[in-house]
């Protein structure tokens, strides 16, 4: 079903045939032990945390010129925080049809990763947001302020799973 909707959507815009983007990513990220998978129209590349920056640099060189979203996913069961950069391209029409999820996992108790601000300046506010929402430390990020929460906010970062909010009785 899912593939049907994709092919219908992309069929009209001379999409790159499925598989091409994976091959391309495989070539670009050769040697960084990437795990490439695609599902539901999104391609995702998983790299080890220490290879993240290098992978980003290579992707940038390959034409992925901006980041659409930076998302941290807290997974307390496995003790990890998954960090996803959704990257794409404005200029290269072949790449801009795709949103590539560049992902890595960080340890939950000390999530630290180099900031990709040097590679993609467009991550600036996204990384700030993930920092305060999930407590991920982006080393080398130029702006140490908090973004959305009040300066005085203390406690568990709100998007961690152990930060509980009230829920409606009927669903609880």
């Amino acid at each position, binding site marked *: *079903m*899912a593939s*049907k*909707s*994709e092919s*219908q*959507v*992309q069929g*009209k*815009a001379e999409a790159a045939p499925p598989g091409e983007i994976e091959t391309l990513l495989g070539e670009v990220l050769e040697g960084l032990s990437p795990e490439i998978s695609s*599902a*539901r*129209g*999104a391609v995702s590349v998983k790299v080890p945390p220490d290879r993240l920056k290098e992978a980003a640099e290579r992707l940038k060189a390959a034409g992925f*010129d*901006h*980041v*659409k*979203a930076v*998302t941290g*996913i*807290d997974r307390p069961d496995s003790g990890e925080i998954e960090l*996803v950069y*959704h990257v794409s391209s*404005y*200029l290269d*029409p072949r790449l*801009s*049809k795709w*949103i590539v*999820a560049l992902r890595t996992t960080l340890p939950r108790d000390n999530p630290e990763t180099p900031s990709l601000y040097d590679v*993609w*300046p*467009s*991550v*600036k*506010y*996204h990384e700030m*947001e993930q920092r305060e*929402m999930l407590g991920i430390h982006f080393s080398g990020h130029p702006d140490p302020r*908090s*973004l*959305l*929460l*009040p300066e005085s906010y203390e406690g568990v970062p*709100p*998007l961690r799973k152990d*930060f509980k*909010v*009230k*829920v*409606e009785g009927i*669903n609880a």
Partner: protein
Amino acid sequence: MSEEEHVLELLIGPQHPASGHMRLVAKVDGDVVVSLRPDIGYVHRTVEKLAETKNYIQIIPLIERPPLADTANHNLGYVLALERLLGIEAPPRAQWLRTLLAEMTRIHSHFYGLGIHGIMLGSSTAFMWAFWDREIMIELAQRLTGARLTYSYMIPGGVRRDLPPGFEDEMDKALRYLERRIPDYHKIFFDNPVTRARLEGVGVLRREDAIRLGIVGPNLRASGVPYDVRKVDPYCAYPELDFNVVTREEGDSLARMMVRVGEIRESINMIRQILKKMPDGPILEERYLKMIPPKWKEWMAQHRRIKLPAALISLRPPKGEAVARVEAARGEAVYYIVSDGSPKPYRFRVVSPSIRNVVLFEHLIRNCRVADIPAIYGSLDYFPPEADR
């Protein structure tokens, strides 16, 4: 005297006629802004966290609140992501109806931005006219959906209502009126020598900077990048519509405003095409349609709307994740859902266009005059609740 000593720090907002729901911390040297830092988060209502506590269908109204002037496009983005996750697809008529509402919303959202830009430059007439013409699209959207702004019109697998009787004629009248109005705006606002003087060459965003900073929407297109999700990754009925991506090369405040005006024209054309080519058929996906008890069928046909099937209330998408993007009025909106198979999303990420454009404040409002702050701010069509979520 050191550099710091003759710099005055101006706190603009959150209570300021032109700050909106945010604070701009401007360092001013005489009449020149040395640097400006946006302080956002004044409308941070934790949509992403609350979404984790809500059923998938309950998230639709939730994500409509932050981008209040541009609800339908965001609703659409979320529903597309959810449909990808569920592996369903809306029937053709529903797709066209979605496109129709999305374009109507784009028109009134652009008028909203235009009006706010007008009042920031001091032209109360531009504000009032834009808000008047905006009401026309709002009124028609209200006939279609039942609400002024928060439509919750698109649901997974389709839309809530069909076209009301007589809608095409009303819309035709409205479109002809709007087309007549745009020259009036040119007379009083766009071609006004004062507007020109205030906007031309002010806040120039160069092409490479726009790409580097990941700017979206009309702000990007005004810098000469023809990136529009409706063309690049077409969704709904856009592949079958004939429209141009409006771009300008200058990248200044005037260009950003004129791109919006151009998009209003394009949307008017698109709505005409949509109403002409709209296919017949059901407005809800078959599998949900089957779940509706037969006794409601007649009621649905009579009222030209659907009864929400119970299955939608506790949707349980399979484990996995989906990402969808739409071209909302202010730019590209990205919706990212991670599901763990439960009725509530495991992680829900909204990247609204405004949060991606917020970087422009510190980039553009630098080495310009104090009076340029509202001129540039208005041209960005930045809506703080949308950025803060």
